[in-house]
C-alpha cells in the first residue's frame, strides 16, 4: 500500500535521512522505532508531504506521491497525525473534527465519519462544543486521532501518540489504535518505547542517526540484541 524507497531528506544542506526504505501492506500496523533525533518524524513528514525529499520515491496505492502538496496527499486517503497533537486550541472539538473532513474525498461522508469517530471516542461527543485547549492531554490526543480519521484514511500516520500521556491512558491509546486498525485502516506509527510499540505492531523499523539499521517482525525485534544496544547503549 505504501512503499518508500531510497528516501533521502535534507534541511537545507543538512542531511538528516539517508537511504531509508520501508513499506506498509494493507491492514498492517507498522512501527517506526528509534531514539530521539533519529529522523522518525522527518520520515513521516516527508511521506505526508510536509517535507520534500531530496531523493527517493514514495508510492501510495501504486501512485507516486512524493513532491505532491500535503492537501493532495490527504485527498488520497493518507492522513497524518502530527507530534504533540496540534489541535486548534481556540476552536471547538466539533470544529476541529470538521476541519479534518473537508477535503473533497471525505466531505460527502463526513456526517457518518463523525458518527464513527464519536463511537470510537465517546468522550469527544460529550465535549463537542468545548474549546480544544480545555481538554486534557489524553482527550487532545483522541481529538487529534479523530480529526485525522475524519479524512477517511486508508493509511494513518501517527507520530508519538503516547507522548506525555499517563500510563493508563497510554494503554487505552494503544487499544484504540488497534481498534482503528481492525476497521481496516493501515497504521504507521512512531513510538520510542519498544515494548509498547511492538505489543500492537505487526512489524517494526528501527532508525538511528537517519539510517535504517534494523527491521523485522515484532517477535524478531523483541528478541534482537541490536535493539537493546541501540536503545540502551553498550
Amino acid at each position, binding site marked *: *500500500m505504501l512503499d518508500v524507497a531510497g528516501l533521502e531528506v535534507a534541511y537545507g544542506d543538512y542531511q538528516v535521512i539517508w537511504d531509508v526504505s520501508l513499506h506498509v501492506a*494493507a*491492514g498492517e500496523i507498522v512501527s517506526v522505532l528509534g531514539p530521539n533525533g533519529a529522523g522518525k518524524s522527518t520520515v513521516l513528514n516527508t511521506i*505526508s508531504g*510536509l517535507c520534500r525529499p531530496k531523493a527517493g520515491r514514495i508510492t501510495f*496505492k501504486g501512485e507516486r506521491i512524493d513532491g505532491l*502538496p*500535503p*492537501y493532495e496527499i*490527504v*485527498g488520497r486517503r493518507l*492522513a*497524518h497525525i*502530527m507530534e504533540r497533537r*496540534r*489541535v*486548534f*486550541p*481556540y*476552536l*471547538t472539538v*466539533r*470544529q476541529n*473534527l*470538521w*476541519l*479534518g473532513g*473537508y*477535503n473533497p474525498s471525505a466531505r460527502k*461522508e*463526513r*456526517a*457518518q*465519519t*463523525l*458518527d*464513527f469517530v464519536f463511537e470510537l471516542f465517546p468522550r469527544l461527543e460529550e465535549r*463537542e462544543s468545548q*474549546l480544544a485547549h480545555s481538554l486534557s492531554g489524553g482527550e487532545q490526543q483522541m481529538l487529534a486521532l479523530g*480529526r*485525522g480519521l475524519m*479524512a*477517511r484514511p*486508508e493509511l494513518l500516520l501517527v507520530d508519538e501518540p503516547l507522548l506525555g500521556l499517563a500510563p493508563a491512558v497510554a494503554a487505552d491509546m494503544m487499544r484504540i489504535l488497534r481498534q482503528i486498525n*481492525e*476497521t*481496516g*485502516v493501515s497504521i504507521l506509527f512512531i513510538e520510542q518505547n519498544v515494548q509498547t510499540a511492538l505489543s500492537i505492531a505487526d512489524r517494526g523499523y528501527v532508525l538511528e542517526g537517519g539510517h535504517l539499521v534494523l527491521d523485522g517482525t515484532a517477535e524478531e525485534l523483541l528478541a534482537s540484541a541490536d535493539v537493546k544496544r541501540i536503545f540502551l547503549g553498550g
Partner: protein
Amino acid sequence: MAAPGFLSETPDDPELAAARAEPLRAPPSRGQWILGAVIGVCLLAYPLVFDQPYQQHVLIMIFIYALMAQGWNVLAGYCGQISLGQAVFFGIGAYSAAFLFSNFQISPWLGMAVGVVVSMVVALLIGIPTFRLKGHYFAIATLVIGEIAQTVFINWEYVGGATGIWIPIEWDAPWFAFQFHDSKLPYYYIGLGFLALACLCVYWLERSRTGLYFRAIREEPEAASSLGTDVTRYKLIAIMVSAAFTSVAGSLFTQYILVIDPETVFPLILSILVVLMTMMGGVGTLWGPIIGTAVLFPLSEMTRIYFGGSGGAEDLMIYGALILLISVFYPRGLIGLVHKVMGRGSHA
C-alpha cells in the same frame, strides 16, 4: 484493498445528518438582532440629529479607520498573519482615485474600483514571497514593504512626487466627481455603507468554511496543512480581502480630504494605528475593530484639542496606557467588556 469497515457503512439518515450540521456559528439570537437594528437606526439618524460639521467629521473618520481596521482584522485577526504594512493598500486606493481623476477625469468611483484591483494584485505579489516567512518575519517584511512604498511614491514624479496630488474641485457633478462641498451627509452615508458591507463580509466569513480555514491557519498552520488545507492559497485570499477593504478606505479618505501626499497616505503610523485599534477592540471578532476605532479615534482627537496640535505624541501616550490597561484586564480587547456587560461568555 477492501474498503475499511467504517468507510463502507453509510447510514443515510437525514435526521442524523441534520444533527451533525456544520459546526459553524449559530445564527444571531433575537436580542442580537434587536441590538443590531437599534445601532443601525442610531447610526442612520445620527447626522440628522448632530448637524455640526465637526460632529459628523468624527464619525466619517471613524468609518474610514474602522473599514481599514476591519481589513487588518481579516488578515491578522482571523488568519493570523500580522501585517504592519496596511498603509500600502490605503495609499494605492488613495492614489488610484486621485490620480485617475486629476489626470484623466475618470470618476473616482471607477478609480476606487481600479484601486481595489491594483491593491489585490499587489497583495498577491507581496503574499507569494512573504507567506513563505513565518510569524514575526512576515510582520517585519510587511513593515519594510510599507516603507519602500512610501519612498517610491515620494520619488515618483509622474504621480506628484513628494507634493502629492491636489484634486481639482468640481462643483457641477458631485456624484460623478465624488466630491460634496455643501454637506458632509453623502460622505457619512457612503462611509457607513462601505463599513456595513465590510462587516457583512466578515459576518459571512465567520460562518463559512473559509473562515474556519483562516482560524485553523492562525492557530496551527502545519496541522491545517496536514489536514488538507491549501495554506498558502487561503493566506492569499485573506490578504487580498484585507487589501480590498483597506484600498476602499484609502479612496474614501482621498475623496473626503481632496489632497493627498505620500506622507499622509503611506505613513508607518497609519499601519500601526489600525493594529492598535483592532487590538484594543478585540482581534478576530466582528465588532472588535469598530469598537476599538470608535474609542481610540475620538480619544486622539480630544487629546489633540486638549494638548494642542503641537505634534507631540500625547495621543499615542494615552493610547499606549489604555492598551496596557485593556490587555491586563481584558486580554481579548474591549469586546470582552462588552460581552461581560451583555452577560454572555465570549467565544472564539
